[in-house]
């Protein structure tokens, strides 16, 4: 039963509007978090994860140099930015699948030839669930976080989300 918040009429489950006063009831079917973990996934926004400083390179940067920088910074992804817009991402997985044993021979080629583009992104005010969904669907482990006018402000990884959820348990 759904009780109409306005007139108190008892409507059947799933009713879109109150049978008596026509007040819309569909917003009442909005999912509510049942557990703390679920609440964390539904309510928290990306900014709560404190996205890490992105490693930004231009598309023309030699891929060998990008690799060296990623190792030096102990990070798994580089975000490729052109004209202040994110155009792609280059991750460990790209290094493994696209460079593989030819890494040394391809070291001087631009990173744009090996990046994943277009790239899925999230905003600072998106929910954690939104990022989780994108990661699960696409099998991504890194998502660039965009701020105003599509500028890159950070990167979140699947481990950031997991650590955040663990902290909430």
């Amino acid at each position: 039963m759904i009780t109409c918040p306005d007139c108190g009429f008892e409507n059947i489950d799933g009713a879109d509007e109150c049978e008596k006063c026509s007040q819309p009831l569909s917003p009442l079917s909005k999912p509510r978090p049942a557990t703390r973990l679920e609440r964390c996934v539904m309510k928290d926004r990306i900014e709560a994860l404190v996205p890490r400083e992105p490693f930004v390179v231009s598309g023309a940067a030699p891929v060998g140099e990008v690799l060296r920088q990623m190792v030096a910074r102990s990070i798994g992804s580089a975000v490729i930015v052109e004209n202040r817009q994110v155009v792609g991402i280059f991750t460990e997985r790209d290094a493994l699948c696209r460079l593989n044993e030819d890494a040394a021979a391809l070291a001087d080629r631009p990173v744009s030839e090996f990046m994943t583009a277009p790239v899925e992104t999230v905003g600072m005010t998106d929910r954690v669930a939104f990022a989780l969904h994108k990661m699960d669907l696409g099998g991504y482990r890194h998502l660039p976080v965009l701020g105003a006018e599509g500028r890159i402000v950070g990167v979140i990884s699947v481990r950031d989300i997991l650590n955040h959820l663990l902290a909430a348990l």
Partner: protein
Amino acid sequence: MTPSALNLNGESIGQVDIRPPLSVAPGASVREVLRLLKEHRRGSVLVCRQGRLVGILTERDILRLLAGGHDLDVAVEREMVPDPLTVGPSDTVGAAVERMAENGYRRLPLVDSDNRPIGEVDVEGIVHLLVQHFPQAVYNLPPLASPPTREREGP
């Protein structure tokens, strides 16, 4: 469709999608491992001697090798991480997640009591488990709107 409460410490590791083990002998070259990983689209390989796990080589190690222009014809045994942290079939999802978080690993080999690999648990599998457990939260994400009152106002 009420979401069941997820108790990570109660769920057995079998609840997570386990990937089949991808293993090589210690004498295999890094080059062979690279080809194998590309072919299977996987991020790590388990190094086994006579069927028993002795090491692991992951994407992160490979990134280092590729960046440094290392000789790819050396035996994987020399570049692998020996005696990696593992999980067993009786461990819980919570234990696996904690082990990953504490050490910054994204994957753990799943081995039996004889240290023979049964599979690999990775962070993608854990995420998938979370998403499946919160279908309402993840798939039916409400738009940004101020919710109406749930209770009747007034006396």
